[in-house]
């Protein structure tokens, strides 16, 4: 379940890191993971691949 604060920060519980990383990466520059680090890194891997960068 998700909770949205007034400052645009969304807190969301999740069980599957790769699934959530796919959802967040699909939003491109419209969404950014603040924490945890493993989810940040998973999203960055997908974004770098989409940007054509070598991982």
């Amino acid at each position, binding site marked *: 379940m998700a909770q949205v604060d007034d400052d645009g920060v969304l807190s969301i519980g999740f069980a599957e890191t790769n699934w959530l990383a796919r959802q967040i990466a*699909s939003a*491109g*520059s419209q969404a*950014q993971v*603040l924490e945890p680090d493993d989810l940040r890194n998973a999203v960055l891997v*997908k974004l*770098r691949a*989409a*940007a054509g960068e070598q991982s």
Partner: protein
Amino acid sequence: VSGNEERLPRLLALVPYLQGRPGIRVADAAADFGITEAQLRRDLQLLWMCGLPGHGPGDLIDLNFDGETISVIFDAGMSRPLRLTGEEALALAVALRTLAETPGLADADAVHRAHAKVETAAGGEVDEATVTVALDWTTRLLPVLQRALDQGRALQLRYFTAARDETSDRTVDPLRVFAIDGHSYLEAWCRSAEGVRTFRVDRIETVDLLDEPAAAPDGLQLRDLAEGVYQPAAEHLLAVLRVSAAYAWVADYYPPVAVTELDEGALQVSLRVSEPTWVRSLVLGSGGQVEVLSPGWLAESIRADAAAAIAAYAGK
């Protein structure tokens, strides 16, 4: 015709009903019970021969229905209103809760009043903790959409368009409701788009049944749905994608114009796209498993968006 299964409960209900309405017209009472006047008179004649043990004067139910009206002279102890069994009360409560859950179908106040009466009559056997009815969103909306169609009324929708990732408010004139591949759809004339649009029911966020009549233009040709809900058009963007074996489902999920097999199970898929937003989301989330080969501007736009997102992470 009135069968015994219906007649016995009606006979039991008649005396308290008539006592509460002294002098009621035969025609009105018959209408309330949904039977003919002749049937009601036969019921009254049978009641006239019922009563307490002894069966003498003063023991039998006494009624006056010689003229156009009915009066109870002696009720023989049958003045207590019909009681509901727990099972009957439960069935009524479920039906009323279902009505209350369905937006726009019934007078909500009347439903809640009726429900409170059933709860009271059931003596606490069907309270809030006993009966909970929760309908899924599509099940709740379909009767409202059908009612709009039946009554020829317009609808106000708030609708989420997945392909554009946006929500919009529209006034529409319903044309039909149908189901394909496990999803229900409303096809309607959209007044803001000035065209026929198809709305997936589970993506309708709110719906209001308007008092104004539906006013779709005359002579509209409804689409042949044999080819599916989404039908690519020549004016849509032609996108060519390279998808890995893990994303080969794209060629099955979206109707392709052409598919070419590449190495290691990868495919080159050409398809018509009404909104490039979903291609952008697919590519960004795929982690390099999906790549836009054409048009070049779309591929470059997606790469730029990914680079902007990466840069934002570097700043935090």
